[in-house]
C-alpha cells in the first residue's frame, strides 16, 4: 500500500481577489511504513499540501490516492498544530472520538482508548479536560487520538511547534519510540530542520512562490539513535544541506 500525490496544484484567491498559486507540480509517493517529512519556509504551502492529503482541502488540479489498499474507506489520523482537542471532552473521550464515530463497541473503545493513552503516558490524566493539561500533555493526547483509529496514513502538521525546546526534544524521542511500535506511513510537516533530520526516512524540501518540490533527500541513517555521538556529524551535515536550500527563501519570508 502506498499513497500517491499526483500533479497536485492549488491556487487561492487572495484578499485582493488575485489568484495566487500556493502549490504547483507536486508529485511524490509515501511508501508503506515510510516517514516522510515536509520542510520549507513560511508560507510555502506545507499546510496546504497536508490538508489536501488529509481530505480537508480540494486540490485545484491533480489528485491524491491510496494504491493497493483493501478497505474502501481508508482511515486517516491527523495531528494538528493547534492540537484541536475537543475542550468539552476529557482526554479519554477525545481519544476514543474516532472509534465512537465508527460505531466501535463500548468495550473495545475502553480497550483501545486505554492502550493508546497508556502509550503516550497519560494514564493519570484520562479524565482530565484539555484545559487542565500542559502543552506537552495536550499534544500527546492529540497523538493518541490519531493513533486510536489505527490509520492507514498518519498526518502531522508541526505538532510540536508550540512546545518549548526541551519538551520538544523529549517529545521527538517519544514519537520515534511510538512510531517504531506502530510503523505507520506518515507525512510530517515541520519548520525545524533538526527535527526533520531526526525523524525522517525522506525529507521533501519545498520552495516558495509557488510551492514546488526543490529537493528530495533520503536520510541514510538508522531510524534510532541518530542523536548518538557517532551520527551527530552526519546529522548535522544533512541539516546544513537542507538549511542552505531553504535559507534564502526563509529570509525572504521574514521580510514580508
Amino acid at each position: 500500500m502506498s499513497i500517491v500525490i499526483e500533479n497536485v496544484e492549488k491556487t487561492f484567491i487572495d484578499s485582493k481577489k488575485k489568484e495566487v498559486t500556493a502549490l504547483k507540480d507536486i508529485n511524490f509517493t509515501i511508501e508503506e511504513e515510510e516517514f516522510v517529512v515536509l520542510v520549507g519556509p513560511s508560507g510555502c504551502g506545507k499546510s496546504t499540501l497536508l490538508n489536501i492529503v488529509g481530505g480537508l482541502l480540494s486540490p485545484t488540479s491533480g489528485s491524491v490516492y491510496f494504491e493497493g489498499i483493501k478497505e474502501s474507506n481508508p482511515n486517516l489520523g491527523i495531528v494538528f498544530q493547534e492540537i484541536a482537542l475537543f475542550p468539552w471532552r476529557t482526554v479519554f473521550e477525545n481519544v476514543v472520538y474516532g472509534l465512537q464515530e465508527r460505531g466501535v463497541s463500548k468495550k473495545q473503545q475502553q480497550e483501545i482508548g486505554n492502550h493508546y493513552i497508556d502509550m503516550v503516558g497519560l494514564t493519570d490524566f484520562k479524565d482530565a479536560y484539555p484545559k487542565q493539561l500542559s502543552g506537552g500533555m495536550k499534544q500527546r493526547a492529540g497523538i493518541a487520538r490519531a493513533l486510536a483509529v489505527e490509520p492507514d496514513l498518519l498526518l502531522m502538521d508541526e505538532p510540536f511547534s508550540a512546545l518549548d525546546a526541551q519538551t520538544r526534544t523529549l517529545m521527538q524521542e517519544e514519537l520515534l519510540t511510538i512510531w517504531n511500535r506502530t510503523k505507520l506511513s506518515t507525512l510530517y510537516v515541520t519548520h525545524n530542520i533538526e527535527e526533520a533530520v531526526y525523524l525522517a526516512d525522506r525529507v521533501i524540501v519545498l520552495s516558495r512562490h509557488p510551492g514546488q518540490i526543490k529537493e528530495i533527500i533520503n536520510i541514510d541513517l538508522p531510524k534510532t539513535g541518530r542523536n548518538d555521538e557517532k551520527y551527530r556529524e552526519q546529522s548535522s551535515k544533512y541539516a546544513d544541506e537542507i538549511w542552505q536550500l531553504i535559507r534564502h527563501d526563509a529570509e525572504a519570508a521574514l521580510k514580508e
Partner: protein
Amino acid sequence: MEKQKQVITNRVAFLDKKVPFYTSFLGIAGILVLWEIVSRIGIVSPLFLPAPSNIVITGWEMLVSGEIYGNLTASLYRIVLGYAIGAACGILIGLIIGFFRTADAIGTPIVYAIYPIPKIALLPLFILWLGIGELSKVTIIALGVFFPVVINTFSGVKSVDPMLVKAAVTFGSNRINVIRKVILPGALPMIFAGLKLAAGTSLLLLVSAEMIAAQEGIGSMVLHYGNLMITSKLMVGVLILSLLGLIFNRALRWLENKLIPWKE
C-alpha cells in the same frame, strides 16, 4: 575608592498593594448606616427616603398580607414564559442561520433590521394585535429575549474553531454529528453570554410593560405606590425587582457551570 552601589528595587510594587478584606463591607455598610441615620433624624423626610429598616419592615408586612405574592406570581408568570419562549426560539433560529448558509443569507439581514427597535415601542402594536392581556406582555418579553440570544447563538456557531470541525470530520463525523458534537457544545459559551444579556433586558421590559399596561405585577405595584407617594412600599417593589435580577443572574451562572464544566 569605595565602589558605588546602585540597588535595583521593585518598581511595580504598587500593583501588588493589598487592601484590608473588611474594606468591601465598609462601603455598603457605611451607606446603609448613613442612610438609616439620615432618615431617622429627619434630615431627609422619610416620605422621600424611608429608612432601610422601615423598608424591611414594610416588606415583611406586605409579604405577610399576601400583597407581594399576588404581584410576584403575575410578574413571574410573564417573565418565565416570555424568557423561555424567546430563548428557545433564539437558540433554535440562531443555530439554523449559523449552520445553513442560505438561512444565514436570508435570515441575518432580517434579524439585524429588526434588532435596533427598542422592543417596548412595539407594546402598543401588540396590544392592538393581541389585546391588552398577558399575551402582549409575554410577546414583548419573548421578543426582547429573542434578539440577543439569536445574535449570540449565531456568533457562537460562527466562532466555533474550524479546526475542531475539521478534526471531527477527519475522525469520521457526518454533518449531523458535527452539529451535535462540535457546533452545539462549541457555541454554548456564547449562547450563555446571550442568555445572561437577555436576562437584564427581559426584566427591564417586564417592568416597563407592567407600568404601561397592567393592573398587577411588581412593575405596576411600583408605579401604583409612586402615584400614591407611599415611598416605603415603592422601595419594597424596587428591592424585590433587584433580588429578582440577582437570582436570575445567579441561576444562569449556576446552570452555565453545570452545563459547561470544561469552560476555562
